């Protein structure tokens, strides 16, 4: 249990630093920066106590906002996917009741895990870019950024998860 807390704290800090110091400076094709820090949300163990998870997700988002001067954009989006993580997971696995404590993203099949990451990333990015542009006139820019950034984020997150977690 203690080890689990430690792992999540280390992961939290290293993902924030990775995001603000490395990934925010990448600029793929001139302007695309993957938002890989949300991997923390995918990997957080599913517990009965959702309150801690929600508050920590909010803190994760707001730390990114502090660094990138973006108001509460990342906090809003990260909190949103944190709240809807469980319902979406249930929908994908088509089970009303599965073993919460033993759930691990490496434990389910690749296609299901991919679908899970895809949906959450897409929702997150869509909220981030909508709030960033804050205007209906620039819907095309929002959509274009969402899709391209999502693709890069998904590729990097999946590679990261495969490299840094143990298969169960």
């Amino acid at each position, binding site marked *: 249990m203690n080890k689990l807390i430690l792992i999540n704290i280390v992961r939290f800090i290293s993902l924030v630093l990775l995001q603000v110091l490395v990934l925010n400076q990448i600029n793929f094709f001139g*302007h695309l920066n993957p938002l890989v820090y949300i991997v923390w949300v995918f990997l957080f163990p599913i517990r009965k106590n*959702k309150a801690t998870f929600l508050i920590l997700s909010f803190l994760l988002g707001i730390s990114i906002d502090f660094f990138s*001067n*973006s108001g509460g954009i990342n906090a809003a989006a990260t909190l949103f996917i944190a*709240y809807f993580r469980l319902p979406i997971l249930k929908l994908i696995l088509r089970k009303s009741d599965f073993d919460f404590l033993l759930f691990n993203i490496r434990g389910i099949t690749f296609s299901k895990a991919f679908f899970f990451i895809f949906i959450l990333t897409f929702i997150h990015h869509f909220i981030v870019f909508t709030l960033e542009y804050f205007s209906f006139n*620039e819907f095309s*820019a929002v959509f274009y950024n969402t899709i391209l950034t999502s693709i890069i984020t998904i590729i990097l997150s999946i590679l990261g998860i495969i490299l840094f977690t143990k298969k169960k």
Partner: protein
Amino acid sequence: MQQIIYFIRKFRYFLLFIILEIFAFYFTIQHHTYHKSKFVNSANFITGGIYNKVNSINEFFHLKHENQLLIEENTRLKNLLERKLNSPNDKIFLIEDSTKYFQKYNYILGKVINNNFTKRDNYLTLDKGIKNGLKNDLGVVNSKGVIGVIKNVSTNYATVLSILNSNSKINVRLKNSNHFGTLVWNGKDSQILQIIDIPRQAILKKGDTIITGGKSAIFPEGILVGVIKDFHFDNNQYQQINVSLFNDMTSLGYIQIVKNLQKEEQYQLEQTTINE
């Protein structure tokens, strides 16, 4: 009562979610509405400190480029000096009198420790703060042109509203005539900015130089901005004037902060005029 407690217990996570979401939206809207976001900005001890540390490592790799910029600026300034020397030949009657000079602007050296240029609204972080005499609404320039306006300051750090931001509106004019316009950014290319509100009487040509207008109390007149790249003239009106910057906003190192020593005076005078 029992019902209410039951309701809260049942929906406690949802309520927590809503409350935190309201906080996040509050910060977002505050960020978009007010000129200054009071709470969430990178001019604080932790974020500024981390950016400063990382920048001190990165800086090493850009020394050559910085030197190049310094030499270029020196050359430009020397040329300006030469031009002054050639003017009227009244050196003989020159009396050195210190009251003859009056200083309107004061420059403070600073360094960009965090640079953004890919988002719709971009901000920079500087390594100078209140300690070095910085305040809100001071202009930031470098040898090649305007960069932005200071937005938030803390004891040791400051954030800058970059010209690559939807809230940035900078008064500019043509170098060869006195027609004023406003410099804005449409969010597409970090090298290309737009000018709006140029009167139709102005005669534009491709390659015309754009400089700051000096109508606001922030920037001195005549700081370089860029050259006109292209423009459309439809319905007797300038539709879109694209300006390509002299500055490379994607690689900024040392900058200067412009402090207008007579800003208060100008501002107060303008206020009394409006109030009368």
